[in-house]
């Protein structure tokens, strides 16, 4: 085994192990994060990175063969479809009115009204209620 082979071997295993670590972190994030949005974020980003590193590592293991060509095609396919699927899921959630934790404060800023003004407004409104 020449020195170049050794370097390729080490680099491929570093990529594979790093990719596996990314996948594992993504899986833990999916299970442990508090709400939907952070879970989607964890799994999509970590999955893309892990998939890319795993494919790269396996390409280096494969060498200049047909296997490497197929791996590159798979990698391109997953690189396009993964974020698209995440986009579709997140978009559907947002359209159906699913908000991130604590986002209500940004969506509808609460008017800070002191108690006196509230009372006056209530008093002004209350006599009309019966008539309308």
């Amino acid at each position, binding site marked *: 085994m020449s020195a170049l082979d050794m370097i390729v071997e080490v680099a491929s295993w570093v990529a594979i192990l790093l990719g596996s670590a990314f996948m594992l972190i993504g899986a833990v994030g999916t299970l442990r994060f508090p709400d939907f949005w952070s879970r989607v974020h964890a799994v999509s980003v970590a999955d893309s990175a892990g998939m890319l590193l795993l494919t790269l590592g396996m390409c280096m293991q494969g060498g200049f063969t047909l296997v490497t060509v197929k791996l590159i095609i798979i990698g391109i396919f997953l690189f396009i479809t993964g974020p698209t699927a995440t*986009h579709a899921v997140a978009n559907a959630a947002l359209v159906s009115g699913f908000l991130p934790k604590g986002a209500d404060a940004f969506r509808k800023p609460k008017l800070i009204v002191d108690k006196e003004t509230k009372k006056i407004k209530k008093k002004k409104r209350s006599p009309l209620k019966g008539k309308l």
Partner: protein
Amino acid sequence: MRHHLLLRVITKLLVGPIILFALYVQFHGDYSPGGGFQAGVIFAVAFILFGIVFGLSKVKQVFPPWLVHKLAALGVLIYAGTGVYSLMLGATYLNYSAFTPDHPEHGQHWGILIVELGVGVTVAAVMVAIYYAFAARPPVISDEEW
């Protein structure tokens, strides 16, 4: 569907490669994992994906229902016809070796290829037909009630 720009672009990008991959699985099935059933499903997935993103009427223009039903029958006809052809050559049903008596392996190669083609055509057509049947149903719950 005008809202989903990203999905439309990605679908246009992917439909062609999916059909190409289906044909690869179909005709490479005797050397690698795959075969008629898987290829048919992948082929149908291209149309189902197109239908989901662009709507049922668009995909029905590309792959009209009358053609789907004819193709579902045609695949079975190819499969059974191969068997009947081997019967007519004096061998048992679906005995591919009878096609080329001098070189049985050659006949077997051709036989499995044709039979898998029949399976693929039928599976693809039936999958698309099932999708049409489900997608053409009027929704039980209206969109506002979701």
